[in-house]
């Protein structure tokens, strides 16, 4: 029924000039529909984070066209169409947890009365309601990242960009956070672009896995994840889950050998 949230055609990005020139991305064609959960996976240097930053207009493309939410990426950023979560929680030490979630609302001039209610709603959503008055340093890494997610969603953006958000967490916390993200995604219906280099994570979370290969960064494969929408511990033991993991692994390997041969 609706136009894609992200639409890229022949997208390319070159960093630096002359001798120091490196081609980060070449010929990216990608479409992300509303409500999709798309993972970008690939070895380091494949430009997956750069692609995410292009979508967020944190860097500008060298070639090709990119439409986000039906607009120029820049306009889309100015309209605050997306929320972003980085590998580090990037919480501000001098603000309480609640005030951290309120930060985007302050910048967007939400009315004073509305901000605390919104923030509390979001903290409820990530199950941190009891920690509103804590300071970031009093929380564990996983909790900090949940605050970052609450902050990213506080203004109800159409799109959530996540750049290896669980890369710094231990395996146990990581799995709990994945469950958490799926729940939040189910409740908000936001489209998600998720950068990761963990194959099981990509398969477990996504509706679609985009496999990328390096030098120059490009999309080498796309794998639809046909697991049931409701995913839990049993999913991780589902034979189909294992098949998909192997499929992604092989796609990654093909991408590697393809690039070393060229």
């Amino acid at each position: 029924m609706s136009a894609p949230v992200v639409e890229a055609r022949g997208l390319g990005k070159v960093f630096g000039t002359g001798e120091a020139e490196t081609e980060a991305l070449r010929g990216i064609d990608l479409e992300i529909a509303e409500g999709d959960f798309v993972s970008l996976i690939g070895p380091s240097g494949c430009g997956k984070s750069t692609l995410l930053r292009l979508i967020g207009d944190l860097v500008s493309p060298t070639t090709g066209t990119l439409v986000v939410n039906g607009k120029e990426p820049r306009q889309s950023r100015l309209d605050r169409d997306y929320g972003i979560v980085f590998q580090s929680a990037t919480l501000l030490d001098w603000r309480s947890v609640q005030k951290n979630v309120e930060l985007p609302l302050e910048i967007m001039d939400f009315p004073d009365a509305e901000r605390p209610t919104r923030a509390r709603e979001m903290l409820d959503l990530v199950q941190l309601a009891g920690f509103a008055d804590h300071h970031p340093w009093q929380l564990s890494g996983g909790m900090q990242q949940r605050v970052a997610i609450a902050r990213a969603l506080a203004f109800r953006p159409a799109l959530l960009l996540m750049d290896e958000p669980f890369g710094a967490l231990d395996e146990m916390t990581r799995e709990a956070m994945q469950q958490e993200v799926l729940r939040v995604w189910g409740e908000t219906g936001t489209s998600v672009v998720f950068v990761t280099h963990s194959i099981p994570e990509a398969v477990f979370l996504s509706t679609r896995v985009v496999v990328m290969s390096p030098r120059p960064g490009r999309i080498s494969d796309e794998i639809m994840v046909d697991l049931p929408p409701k995913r839990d511990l049993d999913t991780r033991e589902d034979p189909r889950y294992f098949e998909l993991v192997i499929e992604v692994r092989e796609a990654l390997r093909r991408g590697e050998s393809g690039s070393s041969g060229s």
Partner: protein
Amino acid sequence: MTERDDQIQETSITDVFASFEGDVPASGRRSSPARLVRRYLPAVFAFLAVLLVWEGLTRLFGVESFVLSKPSEILNSFSETSGLIWGAGMRTLFEAAGGFVIGTSLAVATSLAAAHWVGFRQGVLPLAIVLNATPIAALAPIFNNWFGLTNPFSKMAVVAVVVYFPVMINTTRGLLEVDPAELELMRSLAASPSEVTRRIRIPRALPYFFSSLKVASVLSLIAAIIAEYFGGPQDVLGQYIVNRAQLFQFPDAWAAILVASILGVVFYLLILAAERWLMPWHVSFRTSE
């Protein structure tokens, strides 16, 4: 390696102080009484030992007081001349505090401008680092002639220039050394530059600013006393110390130095209190829970 070297290059006395504070996590954390005793007992012991040995040796060998005054003589003079030296101390403190306020204000204004305009920063920062290598105290005779030998403003001006450089260099660094992810976050929220300054850069710069203020508080008294050496009213600490020393009234001079140190420490502690009040969130003040 290279990165660290480049970082270390642009340093000032502030880093030296800041690094010391990093080494001793004493003041901020709550410690058990036993830990406090273990921590400070050696220092207290050393203090008493030095005083006793000092007093004992000067008595034993009959050292004349103009060579090395006995602690008891200094204490004596401290109480006998208290009106005189505290009066002088207050006048010197006035010069120091006045210069401190002027220098710090100018420094903060420059830092904000330097953080905002790249061109300005590229022109001003190297210049400041070069000027920071000059003996700024040498300006004292110029200011004495410009503003008048007896005008306290001529001393304040010296203090202001001395204080200006460490505060400016450090605050600018704090305003610029922001986590790139925080800048990306603000960009993703389409925040304006002034919003980035207000919500990210200034809070991030506060620790740098305060560590430079602590140095500046101590420097300001030293600078005021140095400026007084170059002439001016006689009823200030610098002149009092020189005059007493020339008359070989060393206990008097030492008592005045004691006043100067007390004032310096109080000034320093005031800054420390302001720091805790303004940045209760900072690492060094966190209580472990």
